[in-house]
């Protein structure tokens, strides 16, 4: 069964600084990968997803993520963080074949300071 690890529970960055949130997965083949964001008081929203092809995927709100098979990682990045990016971010992995549930990581809470 697949699993997801988000090693950082909390991250604090200054506004305007770059951001990288880590995500490592465990799966026997190339999985489907997702990043979701949960802003304060909001539901979870899909930021981006990787299914196949180009390993660098672009998402909404200026986010991107890179799939690295050799490292079993799918880290989320943003070149310049805005105060409105303060939220909780969840990485998720899904199986490309068969009916298997999507597995979510426990999340990384991002704090943005002025």
């Amino acid at each position, binding site marked *: 069964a697949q699993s997801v690890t988000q090693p950082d529970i909390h991250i604090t960055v200054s506004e305007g600084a770059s951001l990288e949130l880590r995500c490592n997965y465990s799966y026997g083949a190339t999985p489907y990968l997702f990043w979701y964001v949960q802003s304060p008081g909001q*539901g979870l929203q899909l930021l981006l997803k990787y299914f196949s092809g180009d390993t660098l995927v672009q998402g909404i709100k200026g986010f991107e993520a890179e799939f690295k098979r050799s490292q079993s990682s799918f880290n989320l990045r943003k070149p310049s963080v805005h105060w409105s990016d303060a939220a909780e971010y969840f990485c998720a992995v899904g*199986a490309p074949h068969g009916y298997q549930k999507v597995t979510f990581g426990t999340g990384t809470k991002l704090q943005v300071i002025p």
Partner: protein
Amino acid sequence: GAGVSQSPSNKVTEKGKDVELRCDPISGHTALYWYRQRLGQGLEFLIYFQGNSAPDKSGLPSDRFSAERTGESVSTLTIQRTQQEDSAVYLCASSLGQGLNTEAFFGQGTRLTVV
């Protein structure tokens, strides 16, 4: 409907009472998930339904928790004899369930407070 709908949006209950939370998935979505999110914490998987297959109940924390889903429609999560530690936001998500369609769509959640 257009999205995943959960009701009620807020529920306050007395310790020891039973509560029932409802989730209406997106029409046609065969997969349905329940998660719990305690204050300041991440997503805790509870249960997964996929079509008519036996549900994956591996995340249910105790036998006070149960969930039902009839076919590919509404699901209810029932918590019996509620305890204060059950206070959390309960999130429901649905997806088309297979391959490229595993993207999950979330409802706004039910905030449960046990007093």
